[in-house]
């Protein structure tokens, strides 16, 4: 590798890189490490030991690779200690094979280069405790077996928290409260910042390859002609191509089963724009035939001599995350349908009650009418035959009076009408349910947005009818919009339920006055616009920013999972290339505008810069 490669790599590396001396002091400290811990390189290198990074004494972390050097610098250090992991790391010394193994330590095999992976709690300069994932690699020279350690460090506090939430969420799935979305954009974000930073260290080519192999992400660097100049361990494992076989050749020579045109297009775009490019959702089939989804960031590496750009590709396997996201979106839908089901049952049970009551009434009426008819015909017969007339008339009068015919004749048609009304209501709800859930549609179809909103409002009626009136201002000329109807309905449902909750919140528990939810549809330039306004509590400006974050909720426990808007955002923005805008002020309600492209392409957009 050329030296500028190392310099760019060291600075651009999104992962913290720290070089340790054999005595446990820091020799090098990159910008990502500075971002993680808050200490600048100068400050970190001035520290007498590594202790400042650790929340508990390193002596407690006997198996920690740094513990060795620390011990060595202390009087109680015993080189024969089995816990002195650096001794284990010396591949040249055969007696270490006999050393007593420490079960907690991952690196036992002295025949392979020593490496260790440790998750630890660490301290930042401002005193926060963070969770970091460390990987250690020994650095050796031909004349000295061990000159120090290179470690990579990643702040996984968020991830650790997410993982905990996921575990919790899985536990809650059965209870119907499935909630989660993985967020992991650290890599991409830090890359952008990293590319602006300068390099200040010079390290041997040997050390740079150590760094390369210890980075957990796939790292491939290409020079300006598209020749592979670096191919790390993670890349070797992922693509089953050894670096020896590919370094020095064109990337396109690599036998990788993926969407090559997309890869080339991205690299071309990088050269043209000279800025970081994200390549999401790269599907790739590995040697054992599994489909893996990769996410890449492409960073330009400018060759100062000719001003042309090479390319640094950093990639990660996001299959598990993607799978999780799909499950989450599905789970949120199942959850909201489950919740709706209770409301729908109420909507259906009420008409069923009065349809049943009216029918019972009509049966009773017919029994009375039957009696009246019989006595009338009896009366006719006896009038014709001229027998016992006055007694018959008295009896008939009595039966007619008991039958209360005036009431029956007035009420029976009403009972029939209201029963029909009830049956229509039930069938309307059942029809809307079918339209709402849209079973079997996984492709975008031309959809009547106005009708879709109507159906969703019907299904969700029980969610809003006690707190709000709904005003619909639909544009009758709105063209059909290509969308995923089930997903679109889900978004409208989330918005309407949120609006109803906001109104209920504003009204408080005593609230008598109902609020209003106004739903407007129309077109605006190339967009179909759906606007949902409510007269609810409004959103605090501090919260507007975080509104679409997963898990963000201001509702009480049990009222919301914090997933609704995050998933709505993902549906509109990611799946439909649309946008969502929010306007709100506390106490003045909120207005959500959903924009969907009127002329959506049938294929999903392939590149997102």
């Amino acid at each position, binding site marked *: 590798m050329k030296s500028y490669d190392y310099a760019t790599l060291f600075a651009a590396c999104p992962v913290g890189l720290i070089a340790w001396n054999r005595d446990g002091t820091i020799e090098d400290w990159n910008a990502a490490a500075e971002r993680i811990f808050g200490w600048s390189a100068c400050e970190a290198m001035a520290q007498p030991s590594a202790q400042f990074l650790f929340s508990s004494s390193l002596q407690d972390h006997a198996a920690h690779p740094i513990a060795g050097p620390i011990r060595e610098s202390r009087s109680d250090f015993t080189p024969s200690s089995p816990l002195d992991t650096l001794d284990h790391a010396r591949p040249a010394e055969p007696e270490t094979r006999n050393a007593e193994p420490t079960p907690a330590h991952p690196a036992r095999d002295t025949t392979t280069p020593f490496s260790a992976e440790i998750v630890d709690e660490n301290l930042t300069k401002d005193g926060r405790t963070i969770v970091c994932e460390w990987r250690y690699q020994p650095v050796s020279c031909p004349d000295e077996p061990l000159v120090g350690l290179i470690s990579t460090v990643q702040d996984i506090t968020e991830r650790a928290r997410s993982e905990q939430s996921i575990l919790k969420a899985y536990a809650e799935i059965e209870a119907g409260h499935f909630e989660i979305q993985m967020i992991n954009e650290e890599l991409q974000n830090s890359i952008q910042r990293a590319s602006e930073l300068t390099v200040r260290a010079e390290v041997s080519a040997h050390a740079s390859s150590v760094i390369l192999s210890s980075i957990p992400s796939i790292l491939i660097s290409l020079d300006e002609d598209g020749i592979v100049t670096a191919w790390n361990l993670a890349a070797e494992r992922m693509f089953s191509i050894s670096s020896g076989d590919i370094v020095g050749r064109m990337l396109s020579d690599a036998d990788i089963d993926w969407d090559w045109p997309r890869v080339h297009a991205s690299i071309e775009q990088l050269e043209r724009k000279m800025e970081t490019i994200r390549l999401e959702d790269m599907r790739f089939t590995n040697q054992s035939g599994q489909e893996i989804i990769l996410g890449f960031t492409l960073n330009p590496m400018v060759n100062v001599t000719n001003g042309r750009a090479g390319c640094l590709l950093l990639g990660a396997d996001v299959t598990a995350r993607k799978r999780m996201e799909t499950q989450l979106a599905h789970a949120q839908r199942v959850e909201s349908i489950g919740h709706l*089901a*209770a*409301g729908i*049952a*109420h*909507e*259906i*049970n*009420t*008409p*069923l*009650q*009065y*349809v*049943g*009551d*009216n029918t*019972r*009434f009509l049966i*009773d009426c017919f029994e009375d009418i039957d009696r009246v008819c019989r006595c009338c015909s009896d009366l006719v017969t006896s009038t014709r035959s001229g027998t016992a007339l006055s007694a018959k008339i008295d009896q008939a009068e009595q039966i007619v009076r008991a039958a*209360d015919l005036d*009431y029956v004749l007035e*009420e029976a048609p*009403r*009972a029939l009408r*209201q029963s029909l*009304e*009830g049956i229509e209501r039930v069938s309307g709800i059942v029809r809307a349910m079918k339209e709402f859930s849209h079973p079997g549609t996984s492709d975008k179809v031309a959809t009547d947005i106005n009708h879709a909103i109507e159906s969703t409002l019907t299904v969700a009626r*029980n969610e809003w*009818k*006690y*707190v709000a009136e709904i005003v619909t201002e639909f544009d009758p000329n709105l063209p059909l919009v290509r969308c995923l109807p089930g997903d679109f309905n889900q978004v409208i449902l989330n918005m309407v339920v949120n609006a109803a909750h906001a109104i209920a919140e504003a009204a408080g528990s005593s*609230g*008598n006055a*109902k609020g209003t939810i106004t739903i407007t549809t129309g077109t605006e330039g190339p967009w179909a616009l759906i606007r949902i306004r409510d007269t609810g509590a409004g959103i605090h400006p501090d919260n507007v920013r975080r509104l679409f974050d997963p898990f963000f909720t201001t509702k009480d426990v049990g009222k919301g999972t914090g997933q609704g808007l995050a998933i709505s955002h993902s549906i509109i923005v990611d799946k439909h290339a649309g946008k969502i805008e929010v306007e709100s002020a506390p106490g003045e309600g909120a207005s959500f505008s959903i924009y969907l492209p009127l002329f959506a392409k049938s294929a999903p957009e392939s590149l997102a810069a």
Partner: protein
Amino acid sequence: MPKILFVDDDVNVLNGLQRMLRVMRNEWQIAFADNGREALATLGREPFDIVVTDMRMPSMNGAELLAEVLQLHPQVVRIILSGQADLQNALAGIGLAHQYLSKPTEPTVLIGVLKRVIGLLAQIPNPALRRSLNSLQSLPSAPHAYSQLIELVRTPGCDADSLAEIVASDMGLAAKTLQTAGSAFANSPCRGANVWQAVQILGPDLIRSLAIDTGVFTDLSQLDGAADRALISELLASSSQRARCAAADTARSEAAAESATFELLRDVGQVALAVALGAEHSAIHSACVECGSAQADAESSRVGVCHRRAGSYLMGIWGLPETLTEAIANASFPISSSPLPVFNNQGSDARHNFAEISR
């Protein structure tokens, strides 16, 4: 003529009820209100016997309405007729209502429930006693049984069998559990007079919600007023003892379980009167103990009803099965199929003819 007030925000439901109840037009007087405030105004104008209300209504829901009714008109029997499928919302009403029906309820069932309540009301002519009994939301439980239950429902993964053992050892817990399990509140309402089955039908989650969130069970030591706690405690202990004997007597058969359930509730009227009448009841009780006269006669002459009728009445308006309320009125459980011994309460009370009491 008995008077019933129906409350529902859906006018179509009220119209339907009015038409359906036309067959009863010569026996009952019915009135309607389409919201809680109007219902309270109507109740303020004239006395009613029964209120039947919807649960979800704008501005004042069924639970809020019934809480007001309990405060202002405690003599009224409170019934919920709800289309609610959401348990969390329904829970709010279960502690306040005597019975919980779900929409759609068949006309014959609704008329049957109302007829039964009206028949029972006729047994308690004393308005003060009716007020006291109708405002009982629960019966006290023995403190140790109550705390055992609370502790168990707080234990994650507690099972229904252990819960049933606790509930079946205490009159207060059993009565409220049977009431809830028999209502439409339960997914598959319990029609039998079997407390073990009632616990299984409700399940641990629902019992946990009832015990902790709604607080439908009460502890004797929390009982305020002039009630004779020592006497109640004694009654609870003896009912628990008899129930244990009945349950252990034969191998867990349906009949044994029903017999034990009856034994638990046999003295429910004594406890109810002790709580409802307070000092007056202790006076009756001690007078009887002193002069050896029949307690039932003393109760009848002082408050117009004996404890067995009071117990059968209360369990009746709570909607417990008629076999059980008849047995409470008779102080004997009619078991024809199994040769189980009948546990008579010290053999002091002569067997009443049920027909004589309830008609």
